[in-house]
C-alpha cells in the first residue's frame, strides 16, 4: 500500500507545501516552544533551587546527635553509603589580650565543606602544626584582630589564620551571631566538659551518586538522632520552594494544554488550506487512505521539526537567562537531553493523536465536485459521536499519563478536570452566544451583517470561543496564582529583619543606649522591648517533665529558661488565633502563648501555667493563642504576659536595630561603653535567605509571564483560522460597495462581541478556581491583582484590534482584482 514512490511523493509534496506549512509552522512552533521552555525552565530551576537548599544546609542531610558523637559502628555504616563531614559546635568566649567576646565555634574535619565553598580572606593559610582559627569579620573587627595574632579559647592559644567572608552551611548556625571555625583536631586541646549545654555534634551527609539508599531507612533504629534533609530546611523557606515547584509543574501542564489548543487550531487551518489540493488528489485517483497518510506524514514531519527546533531554542534561551536577569537562578549549563526531547515529542504526539482522528475524518468530505460547488462555503467540522469517543479515549490516556508522572497526581488530575470543565463550559457558552445573537433583530445593516457572520461562522466561533475561553482561563489562573505566590514570597522576604540584636540592656542603660544608637545612625530603625525570663514548671498543676515528652516538637518550650516580654498591643507580625488580647482590669498574670506550642501541648484557653519568674512561682491563665512567625527574624516571643503584671517584675531590654543601608557602622565604641550588652549579627543569614527567596520570586514571575504571553499569542492566532474565509467574503463586500473601514468595523465589533463575554466569564471562572487552589491546595493567602488583570485584558483587546486591523487593512486596500484572482 505504501511503496517507495509514494514516500517520495509525500516528501516532494511536503517541500512543495512549504509556504502553507510555514504559515502554520509559527503556531506549531510557539505552542511547542512554550511547553518545552517551561519544561526546561522547570527542571533548571528545580536543579538550582535544590542546589541552593543543599548549600544552606551544607549537605543533603544533617544529622544531629546532641552532646555525644554518633557511635562508631553506626558512623561506619553511614560512611559506606554516604560522604560525611563531622562537625562539633559549641558556644564559648574568645579573648585577645584585653577583651573578650562570646562566639559560636564550629570545629570541622578534613571533609568540610561537602558542598559550597568556604571563603576566607586572605586565602587559606592554615598551618598544620598549630591550632588555627578563622573568625567572622565582625569578631575580627571588635577584637581588633590581625592575621597570625594569637587569641585564647579557654586556656588554649589559637592563631588567627583568616577572616570568614562566606560559608555554605549557615542555616541554624547563624542564630548565635559571631562565629569562628577551628579544625577538629584542635578540639583535643579544649576541655569539652566545660563547653556547656550548647555543644552539638553534627554530621553533614551527601548522597553518593550510585547509591540511593535512604538515610532515614538506614538510621530508623536510632531514635536519638535528629535528621534534617535539605527539603525541610526551614519551614517557611521550604514551604515556599515546595509550593513553587508544585506551581511550576502546574504551569507546565497549563502550557501543555495551551500547546494543545495551538496545535489543534493550526492543524485545522493546515487541512483547510490544503482543501483544493486534497480534492484534486482524490479526483486524480489517489485513495482516501493515501491522502490521509500524505497529510499525517506532513503533520508529523512538521511536529518533529518544530519540536526539535523549539526544544533547542528553549535550551539556548534558558542558558542565557542568567545573563539577561543577572542572577544565578537558572542553570547555565543546561544540556540537550534526548530523553527530555523524546518526552516533549511523545506528549505532543499524544495531543496530536487526540485531534487527528476527527480532523482526518474531515478529509473524507473533500472531493472535487463538492469543492467546485461549495466553492467558498465553510468547512464543516462538527464532531460526530465516533470522533468524540476517540478524542475522549486519547484524552483519558493523556491525562492518566501526565497525572501519574506528576509528583502530585491528585492535584494534577484536578487541574485537568478544571480544563475539561472549561472546555465543556465554553462550548455551551458559544452555543448560548449564538442563540442570543439569533434574537438580535435590527435594521442596521452593520449589525445584520455581524449577526449573519456569527451565525454562519458558528463552527469557527465555537472553536475560537473554546480556545479563547480555555486559554484565558488558564492564563488568568496562572496569573492570579503566581501573583498570590509571589506576594507571599515577598512577604516572607526579610526586608524588615534587623541587622543586629542587642541583649542585656539594663534599665539604667536604656536611655544611654538609645542615645548611642541615635549617634551612630539617626535613621536607624530600632525596636526595643522589655524582657524578663521565666521557666515553665507546671501545666494545670502537673509537673511539665511528667506530661511532656522529649520527643514533643515543642519540647524546647519547657526546656530551660524562656525569654518573656509584655506589650500593650498585639505585635505587628503576630495575630491571634484564639481568645482575646489583655483584660486590662485584671491584675493577675495573663498569658499569650505561641499557637504551635499550644497545639503540640494540647493547651486550651483558660489553662493554667506555673511560671518560675526570678525564683518565684506564679500561676498565670492562658487567655489567647498567637500565630508567631520566627522566620521573619524580628523579635518574637513564645510567651507574652500582660503589661500590668510585667511592669512589676525585674526586667531588662532587648533591642533589634536595622541601620540605614550603605551606612558604615562602627560598633566598637558602642560595645566598649556597654560591657554588659551582648549582640548578634544577623546580616549574612538575612542576605542568604533573601537571595534564595529572590530567586524563587524571579523564577515564578518569569515563567508565568512567559506562559501568559505565549498563551495570549496562541489565543490570538485562533482568530487567524477564520480569516481566509472572511477574506473572500470581505472582498465581495468591497465589490458591492462596502468601504474597507466599514468592513473592518464589522470585523472588530464581531470580535468584541465574541471575546469580551468570554474574557469576563473566564476571568470569573479562573478567579474562583485560583481562590480554591491557592487557599486550599497551596495554603497561601489569595491575592487578587485586579489592575494588572484589567491591563492584561485591555492589552489583549488592543493587540487583537491592531492585528485584525493591520492584516485586513492590507488585504482590503490592495488592488481588488488581483486579490480576487489570488483567492
Amino acid at each position: 500500500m505504501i511503496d517507495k514512490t509514494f514516500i517520495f511523493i509525500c516528501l516532494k509534496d511536503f517541500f512543495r507545501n512549504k509556504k502553507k506549512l510555514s504559515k502554520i509552522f509559527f503556531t506549531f512552533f510557539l505552542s511547542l516552544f512554550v511547553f518545552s521552555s517551561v519544561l526546561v525552565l522547570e527542571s533548571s530551576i528545580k536543579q538550582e533551587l535544590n542546589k541552593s537548599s543543599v548549600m544552606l544546609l551544607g549537605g543533603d542531610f544533617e544529622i544531629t546527635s546532641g552532646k555525644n558523637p554518633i557511635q562508631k559502628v553506626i558512623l561506619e555504616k553511614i560512611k559506606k553509603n554516604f560522604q560525611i563531614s563531622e562537625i562539633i559546635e559549641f558556644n564559648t568566649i574568645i579573648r585577645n589580650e584585653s577583651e573578650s567576646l562570646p562566639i559560636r565555634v564550629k570545629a570541622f574535619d578534613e571533609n568540610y565543606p561537602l558542598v559550597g565553598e568556604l571563603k576566607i580572606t586572605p586565602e587559606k593559610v592554615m598551618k598544620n602544626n598549630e591550632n588555627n582559627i578563622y573568625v567572622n569579620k565582625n569578631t575580627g573587627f571588635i577584637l581588633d584582630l590581625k592575621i597570625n595574632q594569637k587569641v585564647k579559647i579557654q586556656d588554649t592559644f589559637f592563631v588567627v589564620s583568616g577572616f570568614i567572608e562566606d560559608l555554605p552551611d549557615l542555616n541554624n548556625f547563624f542564630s548565635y551571631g559571631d562565629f569562628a571555625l577551628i579544625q577538629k583536631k584542635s578540639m583535643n586541646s579544649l576541655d569539652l566538659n566545660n563547653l556547656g549545654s550548647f555543644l552539638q555534634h553534627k554530621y553533614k551527609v551527601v548522597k553518593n551518586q550510585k547509591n540511593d539508599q535512604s538515610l532515614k531507612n538506614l538510621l530508623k533504629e536510632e531514635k536519638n538522632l535528629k535528621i534534617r534533609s535539605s527539603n525541610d530546611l526551614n519551614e517557611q523557606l521550604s514551604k515556599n520552594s515546595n509550593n513553587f515547584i508544585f506551581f511550576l509543574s502546574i504551569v507546565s501542564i497549563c502550557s501543555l494544554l495551551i500547546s494543545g489548543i495551538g496545535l489543534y487550531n493550526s492543524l485545522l487551518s493546515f487541512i483547510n488550506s490544503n482543501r483544493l489540493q486534497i480534492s484534486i488528489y482524490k479526483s486524480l485517483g489517489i485513495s482516501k487512505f493515501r491522502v490521509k497518510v500524505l497529510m499525517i506524514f506532513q503533520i508529523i514531519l512538521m511536529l518533529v521539526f518544530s519540536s526539535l527546533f523549539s526544544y533547542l531554542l528553549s535550551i539556548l534561551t534558558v542558558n542565557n537567562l542568567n545573563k539577561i536577569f543577572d542572577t544565578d537562578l537558572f542553570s547555565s549549563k543546561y544540556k540537550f537531553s534526548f530523553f527530555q526531547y523524546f518526552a516533549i515529542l511523545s506528549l505532543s504526539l499524544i495531543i496530536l493523536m487526540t485531534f487527528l482522528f476527527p480532523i482526518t475524518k474531515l478529509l473524507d468530505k473533500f472531493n472535487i465536485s463538492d469543492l467546485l460547488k461549495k466553492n467558498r462555503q465553510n468547512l464543516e467540522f462538527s464532531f460526530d459521536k465516533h470522533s468524540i469517543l476517540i478524542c475522549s479515549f486519547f484524552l483519558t490516556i493523556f491525562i492518566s499519563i501526565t497525572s501519574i508522572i506528576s509528583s502530585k497526581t491528585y492535584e494534577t488530575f484536578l487541574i485537568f478536570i478544571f480544563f475539561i470543565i472549561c472546555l465543556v463550559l465554553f462550548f455551551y457558552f458559544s452555543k448560548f452566544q449564538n442563540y442570543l445573537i439569533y434574537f438580535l433583530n435590527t435594521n442596521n445593516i452593520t449589525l445584520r451583517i455581524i449577526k449573519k457572520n456569527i451565525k454562519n461562522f458558528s463552527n469557527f466561533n465555537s472553536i475560537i470561543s473554546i480556545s479563547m475561553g480555555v486559554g484565558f482561563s488558564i492564563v488568568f489562573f496562572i496569573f492570579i496564582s503566581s501573583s498570590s505566590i509571589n506576594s507571599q514570597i515577598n512577604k516572607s522576604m526579610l526586608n524588615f529583619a534587623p541587622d543586629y540584636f542587642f541583649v542585656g540592656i539594663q534599665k539604667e542603660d536604656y536611655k544611654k543606649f538609645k542615645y548611642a544608637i541615635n549617634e551612630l545612625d539617626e535613621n536607624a530603625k530600632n525596636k526595643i522591648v522589655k524582657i524578663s525570663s521565666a521557666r515553665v514548671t507546671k501545666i494545670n498543676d502537673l509537673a511539665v517533665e511528667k506530661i511532656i515528652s522529649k520527643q514533643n516538637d515543642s519540647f524546647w518550650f519547657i526546656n530551660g529558661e524562656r525569654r518573656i516580654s509584655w506589650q500593650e498591643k498585639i505585635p505587628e507580625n503576630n495575630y491571634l488565633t484564639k481568645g482575646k488580647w489583655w483584660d486590662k482590669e485584671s491584675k493577675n498574670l495573663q498569658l499569650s502563648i505561641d499557637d504551635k506550642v499550644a497545639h503540640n501541648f494540647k493547651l486550651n484557653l483558660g489553662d493554667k501555667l506555673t511560671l518560675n519568674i526570678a525564683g518565684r512561682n506564679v500561676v498565670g491563665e492562658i487567655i489567647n493563642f498567637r500565630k508567631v512567625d520566627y522566620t521573619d527574624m524580628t523579635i518574637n516571643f513564645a510567651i507574652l504576659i500582660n503589661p500590668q503584671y510585667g511592669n512589676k517584675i525585674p526586667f531588662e531590654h532587648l533591642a533589634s536595630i536595622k541601620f540605614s543601608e550603605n551606612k558604615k557602622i562602627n560598633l566598637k565604641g558602642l560595645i566598649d561603653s556597654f560591657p554588659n550588652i551582648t549582640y548578634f549579627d544577623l546580616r549574612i543569614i538575612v542576605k542568604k535567605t533573601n537571595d534564595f527567596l529572590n530567586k524563587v520570586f524571579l523564577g515564578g514571575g518569569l515563567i508565568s509571564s512567559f506562559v501568559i504571553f505565549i498563551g495570549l499569542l496562541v489565543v490570538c492566532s485562533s482568530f487567524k483560522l477564520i480569516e481566509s474565509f472572511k477574506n473572500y467574503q470581505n472582498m465581495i463586500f468591497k465589490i458591492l460597495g462596502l468601504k474597507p473601514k466599514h468592513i473592518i468595523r464589522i470585523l472588530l465589533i464581531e470580535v468584541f462581541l465574541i471575546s469580551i463575554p468570554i474574557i469576563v466569564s473566564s476571568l470569573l471562572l479562573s478567579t474562583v478556581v485560583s481562590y480554591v487552589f491557592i487557599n486550599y491546595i497551596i495554603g497561601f493567602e489569595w491575592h487578587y491583582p485586579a489592575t494588572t488583570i484589567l491591563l492584561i485584558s485591555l492589552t489583549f483587546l488592543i493587540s487583537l484590534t491592531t492585528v485584525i486591523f493591520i492584516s485586513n487593512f492590507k488585504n482590503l486596500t490592495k488592488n481588488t482584482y488581483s486579490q480576487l484572482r489570488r483567492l
Partner: protein
Amino acid sequence: MGYLFSLKNISLHYMLKQEKINILNNISLKIKKNERVSIIGESGSGKTSLLMIMAGLQRASGGLMTFENYNFTKISEEQIIEIRKSKIGMIFQDFYLLPNYSALENVMFPLEINKLINPKKKAIAILEELGLGKKINNLPSELSGGEQQRVAIARSISFNPEIILADEPTGNLDAKNSSIVIKILFDYSKRYQKSLVLVTHDENLAKKSDKIIKIKDGEIEDND
C-alpha cells in the same frame, strides 16, 4: 450628449520578474447613457481586465478614465467604492456570490447597503423573473452553475445601477436560459435607460448591441 464612461489611452501592465507584461494598450472608448456595448475577443485578450478597470477594481497603469463627472484615475478608492455601490452593477465570470448568503440574501445585499425601500420584495420579484422563485432560500452551493449566474445577474440589476458590466453572463447557460438572461439584461437596460457592457464570445449576441468593440492582444481592433 454626455458620455457615461470615457476611456482615453488606458493601458495596463504587470511586472513579472522584472519583465513588463502588457495586458492593455492605448484603449480609448466612450460609452453613452442608455447605450449597449459588446466587447468581444479571444480568450486572454484582456476583456476581463478592461472591465475591472472600468469597475474601479483595478487601477490602470496609464491613461485617463471618467465616469459621469468623476475622474476615476484621480479620486480615492473610497470614493470609487461609494460610486460603485449605487451606480455600477457587476456580473463576474466566477459569479462571486457571498458563499453563506442565500440567493435571496445575495440579491438583497446591494439593496440594503443602498438603503432602498422594500429590499425583500424587490429581490423576490427579480429572482422570480429570472426563474428562481423556488430557489430563493438556497445557498450558492446548493445551486447549479447556471442558477448561480442568474443570482449574480439578479444581484447586479437589483439596485438599479447606471451601468451593468457583465463578464460573459451566459457562459454557463444553455440556449434557452441564455436567451432569457440576455433578454432580461437588454430589457432592463432599455426599460430604465441604463447602459450595458457585455463581454461575450458569441458574435450573434454581440450583434444585438448598439456597438461592438473587438479586442485583440490588449488593443482595440475594431470599433464600430
